[in-house]
């Protein structure tokens, strides 16, 4: 069997005395689109933050693309990207300058192309502080696309977006899937995502309480 893109083994993380993740165990094959469902505070964002190496787990082990999320962080970061609740953008810089920072670090030169892809070309030189919440979300999307990741964590990708933005997310996920990337989507738009996701897990109080579809 091929190596899974995501491998969680009793992954656990706590904030203070509260366990946000507890014994989360699952494997996900490469190239799948998986929906992560659950109420607010169920641990979806924490799971994504642990797997993307933004925070460390307190117990258990996690691997992304075969790389350990604690010991091989730089490798995990090389192949994955996180669309988080926070935009990761500099308010005083323009959309183009924000992408330019990431592009230079990664040695990419396709900022104009991704700005066009998310529909922000006309506002490329405007500072992010003048952007609406939806436009910031689109720019964060552009930031993820710039990284050309093999594994993508989308945390509430539809939040703050208009219907056109919804179509953009669907198209981007479709493109990522077509080129073999693994996509995890944490969302409350369950009815919408279930239409195209290959599989799903449901979290409750930090534990996996349900699985649908073939993860492997």
């Amino acid at each position, binding site marked *: 069997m091929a190596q899974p893109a995501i491998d969680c083994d009793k992954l656990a993380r706590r904030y203070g005395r509260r366990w946000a993740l507890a014994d989360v165990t699952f494997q996900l094959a490469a190239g799948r689109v998986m929906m992560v469902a659950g109420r607010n505070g169920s641990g979806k964002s924490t799971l994504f933050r642990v797997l*993307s*190496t*933004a*925070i*460390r787990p307190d117990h258990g082990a996690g691997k992304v693309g075969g790389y350990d999320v604690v010991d091989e962080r*730089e*490798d995990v*970061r*090389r192949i994955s*990207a*996180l669309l*988080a609740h*926070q*935009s*990761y*953008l*500099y*308010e*005083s*810089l323009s959309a183009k*300058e924000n992408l330019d*920072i*990431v592009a*230079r*670090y*990664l040695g990419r030169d396709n900022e104009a192309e991704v700005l066009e892809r998310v529909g922000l070309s006309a506002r490329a030189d405007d500072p992010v502080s003048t952007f609406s919440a939806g436009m910031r979300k689109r720019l964060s999307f552009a*930031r993820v696309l710039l*990284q050309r990741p093999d594994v993508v964590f989308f945390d509430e990708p539809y939040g703050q977006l208009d219907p056109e933005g919804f179509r953009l997310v669907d198209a981007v996920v479709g493109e990522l899937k077509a080129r073999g990337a693994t996509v995890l989507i944490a969302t409350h738009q369950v009815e919408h995502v279930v239409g195209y996701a290959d599989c799903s897990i449901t979290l409750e109080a930090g534990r996996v309480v349900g699985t649908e579809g073939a993860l492997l």
Partner: protein
Amino acid sequence: MIHALRKEFLLQWRTRAQLMAVIVFGASALLLFSFAVGPNAQMLRQFSAGFMWLGLLLSSTLTLAESFHAEMENRALEGLMLLPMSPRVIYYGKALANWFQLVLLGCALFPVMVVLYDAGTTDLLRLFLVIALGTAGLSAPGTLYAAMTAQVRSKQTLLPLLLFPLIVPALLASVKATSLIVLGDPMQQLAPWIRLLAAFDAIYWSLCGLLFGRVVEE
């Protein structure tokens, strides 16, 4: 590294009005020190180096604390940390940019010192060297502690509390070296103080670079 430095200069340029405010703050501090001593020209001149470095130190805490403001606004620092590169690149970019800003601040405060305390010198090259080395000693640990305290609510209080004890050796060497340049150096003591300052800088810059990753990553 160049990319990190470029980003920092871009952010500094967008908030350049803040540097002017910090320079005015430093100049005001020097003015207040002169009020404290009174119209004793001899004493003012004697303490001028100490006053200048105290003014620079107080102003630097504002600059250093503010340097992580943009990084924390939308968790931009976390976004950078999630890119496949060493945290040291981010640290040295930030520390170098802060150093540049503190050198500017030092160069701006020197004429104020000359006017207020009548403590000038023609040895500007060596004075610039001391300002550069002294501010390097503030910038390296200051950037590290600014990163540590950036997410704390009382960062403006906590940063000086943590920073001041650590930079005492560099501050003493800077004051002594500046004083020797301004008041004269009949015993040829300047070179050892500059060497001491450079040694502290080397320790600060290497240690803080190593520790930065541990400080900002969970």
